Structure formats: C-alpha cells, structure tokens
C-alpha cells in the first residue's frame, strides 16, 4: 500500500468500560488533505494520537508512512500539532521554534516561519503570554518546521480569528501543493469542505461516512426560503416533478429538494403567488457538509 500515508485497520481503543474507537478503518492517501470530522467524544483524537504514537491501541493495525507508530524512524518524518499546550510556559516563541528546528536535519528557517505566520513581533514573548490564536500558530509552525512528509493537525483553527484562520488554511494548501500529506481534525465543516480531498466522518468510534466533499454533499441542490409557518407542502409537491421532496424545518424555513432548475423555481414561486405567500431569503444551494454531518450524527447535544 505504497500510496497510503496512514492506514488504520479494525482499530479498537477502550478506556475502562468506554469504547472510544470501535473497529475503525481509516485510509489517508499520500499527498492529500484528509479531514477527520466528528462530534466531541467521537474518537477523533484517540485515533490520531494512536497514529502519532502517543497512545497504544487495544487491537487492530496501524501503519503510518508504512511504519508502526512507535518506530523511531517515523519521528523525523511526521509533524505534529497538539490540540493545546506542549510548550513550556516560560519559553519564548522564537526560542522554542529555534529549539525544535535544531532537532531536524533540514529545517525551515525559524524566523522566516515566524514571519510567515505573523509571529515576528511576538518572538520574544513567553508562551503563556501569547493569545490562544498565537499559541495555535506557534504549534502549527513547530509541526512543519522539520519539513515532514506527513503532518497531523488536531483542530488547528480552534479559537483562531478569521485572519489567523485564513493564514492557517493557506499554510495547509501550500503543504499540499508541496506534496506533504495532511491529516487534520476539525469541527469546522467549511474548513473540511474547502481544504480537504477526503473527508472521514467518525461517530461513536466508527466511520459513518467518507468520500470527497463533493461525493458526501452530492450533486443535488436545494431551494430554500422563509415564509409563514404551516404551508401545505403536499399542494406544492403535486405541482413539482416526481422525486422532489419538501420539508419545513424549523417552522417557517422551507427546503425543496430535487431537480432544482428554473422551471422548478418558477413553479414554486408561482404557487406562492397564488397562495398569497410572501417568501424571503429565497436561495438555491448545494447541500453543505454540515447538513450531511448533522444528518449522520444527529442534532442532539452530547
């Protein structure tokens, strides 16, 4: 399996009575960006940390760049960004990055990397006095400074402001363009949709769906609009081609799915006109990854 950056088969991880990872299979191809999505507690971090060699599995097989996760030969080849922490509180940002660069044979220039991530002005700031977003960016810098083949990013944009998030996205795109494989976990569906070649949705320790963002969201488009609650949708459906679907969720928010084309749009608006219904925010949209995610993992809070 030469082309797999990460190959996980039948992975199981238990914490006491809790099964965090339940016979999970995961394959991340080389040179691609793979996004691992899932609600809190779905088993994302457990899976990633087993791949990173931080935790051991109860059963199953894991190969990272063709090696076992605890293989010492793997460390120089992968870059890791933890969800948080990992840096001494008193360490200055620039000194920490320089230190990590000294562990590698062909590192990036630390000051160029600081500059690239907008941290130059904070090079002498102790880690504990950096903002959350600055700490995240320093973590990203440390993950890529050794010029790895594969990068694991655990929620890289959590807590970032929009500018910093875009800087992080640019870095991920550049990594991909340079031939680096990237595995990232995220709660931001737009991030997964924009950046990744392959999306894996995990829930309750299992993969519930995977594919490219386009495959997961499907080619189908939706007509959405707002109007007064309680419209009789059966009437509008009888006027639409067979195979169309209509729903009101939540009250006053309508979604028509099917062959969304100009004639369907005309039919719906004509029907609203004869019923004396004023529509607002009428739009045609593709299903988003967030829709797919919520359908698969449910709406209830955990």
């Amino acid at each position, binding site marked *: 399996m030469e082309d797999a950056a990460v190959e996980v088969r039948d992975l199981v991880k238990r914490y006491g009575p809790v099964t965090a990872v339940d016979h999970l299979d995961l394959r991340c191809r080389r040179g691609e960006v793979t996004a691992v999505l899932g609600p809190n507690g779905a088993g994302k971090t457990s899976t990633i940390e087993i791949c*990173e*060699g*931080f935790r051991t599995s109860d059963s199953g097989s894991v190969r990272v760049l063709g090696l076992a996760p605890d293989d*010492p030969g793997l*460390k*120089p*080849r*992968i870059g*890791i960004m*933890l969800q*948080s*922490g*990992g*840096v*001494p*509180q*008193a*360490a200055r940002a620039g*000194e920490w990055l320089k*230190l*990590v660069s*000294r*562990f*590698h*044979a*062909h590192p*990036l*220039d630390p000051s*160029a*990397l600081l*500059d*690239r991530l907008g941290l130059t002005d904070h090079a002498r700031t102790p880690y504990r006095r950096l903002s959350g977003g600055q700490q995240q960016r320093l973590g990203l810098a*440390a993950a*890529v400074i*050794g*010029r*790895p*083949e594969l990068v694991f990013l655990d929620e890289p944009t959590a807590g970032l402001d929009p500018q910093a998030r875009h800087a992080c996205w640019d870095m991920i795109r*550049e*990594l991909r363009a*340079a*031939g*680096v494989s990237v595995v990232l976990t995220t709660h931001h569906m737009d991030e997964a949709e924009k950046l990744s070649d392959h999306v894996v949705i995990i829930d309750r320790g299992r993969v519930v769906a995977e594919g490219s963002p386009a495959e997961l969201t499907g080619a189908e488009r939706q007509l959405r609009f707002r109007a007064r609650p309680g419209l009789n949708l059966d009437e509008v459906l009888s006027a639409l081609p067979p195979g169309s679907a209509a729903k009101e969720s939540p009250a006053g928010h309508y979604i028509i799915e099917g062959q969304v084309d100009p004639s369907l749009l005309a039919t719906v608006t004509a029907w609203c006109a004869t019923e004396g219904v004023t529509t607002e925010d009428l739009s045609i949209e593709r299903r988003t990854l967030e829709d797919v995610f919520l359908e698969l993992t449910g709406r209830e809070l955990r």
Partner: protein
Amino acid sequence: MTTLDLSPAPGAAPLAQMVLAQAGAEVRATLRNGEQLLLTLIIPILLLVGFSKAPFLDVGGPRVDFVAPGVLALAVLSTAFTGQAIATGFERRYGVLKRLGATPLSRTGLMLAKTAAVIVVEVLQIVVLVLVALALGWSPHGNPLTVALLVVLGTAAFSGLGLLMAGTLRAEATLAGANLVYLLLLALGGVVLPVSAFPESIRPLLEILPITALTDGVRSVLTGVGGFPMGAALVLLSWAVLALAAAARWFRWE
C-alpha cells in the same frame, strides 16, 4: 509574504546537536526562573555567609570550613532534586514531555539533555559558592576528584528522586513536596547544623539520608579529616540505584 520551501526533506539532526540544544534551553530556563535561583544560589549564599559570620555554631575550627561543604551539598540537592522535580513536573503537566516525545529527540536524548543541564548549573553554583567561601577565608583540603565523584553520585541519587516525584505526582503536589523536602533535608541533613545536634535516637535515620551522606562525605574530604568516605559513597550509590530504577519503572510521561 515570505515564501517557504515546504517540500518534504525530513531527517533527524545528529544526537549531539539535539541534546546540546535541549540542554541549552533547560539551562536558560533555570537561570531565568526567579524561584529556581532563590533555591539554587540565593539561599545557599545567604546560609554560607550567615552561618560563617554569625556565632550560631560551635564546630571547632573556622566556621566556614564546616559550612562551605554543607552548602555545596545543598547546591546539588537544590538543582538535581528540587529544581529538576518542579521543572519536569510542570513540563509533564503542560504536555511538553509529550510534545518533545513527538520530535526526533528520543527519551534517551531528553534524559541526557536534562542530566547535562543539571551538571552545567551545578558547576556554575559550585564556582560561585567556592569563590564566596574563599572570600570568607575558607581553606579547603583533600582531593577535588573525590569531591567530584561524591557530587556525581549525589546528583544521580537526587535526580532519580526528583524524576520519580515529577513523573508520578501532580505538578502542584510536586511543587509543594519538592520544596518541603528541600527544607527538611536542609534542616536535618547536616548542611549547616551538625547531625550531632540531633537526639541520639534519630541519628541513625538521619545518617542514611542522601543529603547527610553527601554533606558528611564532602565535609570529611574537604576538611581533610579522613580517607575516602566509603560509607557515604555507598549510601549515595544505593539511593542512586534505587531511585533511578523506581523512576524508570513508574515515571509517566503524560
């Protein structure tokens, strides 16, 4: 915007470079930390000056000849045990050990770096304390190599104990515990108060403490009263073997 060549070019640096870089970072962190300096330099200097000048002690002979060896032993305790335990405990708590474990610096490399950093700080402490003691009129005797051997054994014993504490307790418990142990050993271990000042009944217990072995051993060499302090060396060696084995067995990295 700066362009960076992100194309993969992985590889570990040579072990010596990694260990030196990490050791340098640890020495800098120690020297910048005010609380660490209090324990490693300021308290030892104050004790050295205070107990050499003030007439608290009746030790027969110049007081500085008695106090200086004790303070040198205290310096080893403060760096190898207290400082190392606290720093490592917080490194563990903040995921630094975990993060470093994901770099090409192996655990062996990290331990070598910590050992090197402790030795560098000890050498700095010893230089400063010896200069202060000489200024106070200290006249040391004995073989410096014997003292160095005792310092190495003491460093191994205290490092083992410090890492055992840091690797098993919560960081806050390590902080409190390591400071408490420092104070207790300072008071009980013959550093500035001779063990003979304590009741006969508890003396055998005090004499098997690693700090007592180190102070007595270093003091007997530097005052030139005896030959090689075999008893002290054996006590320190035993502590070193037991503590390092226990730390290797129970240390949790995360």
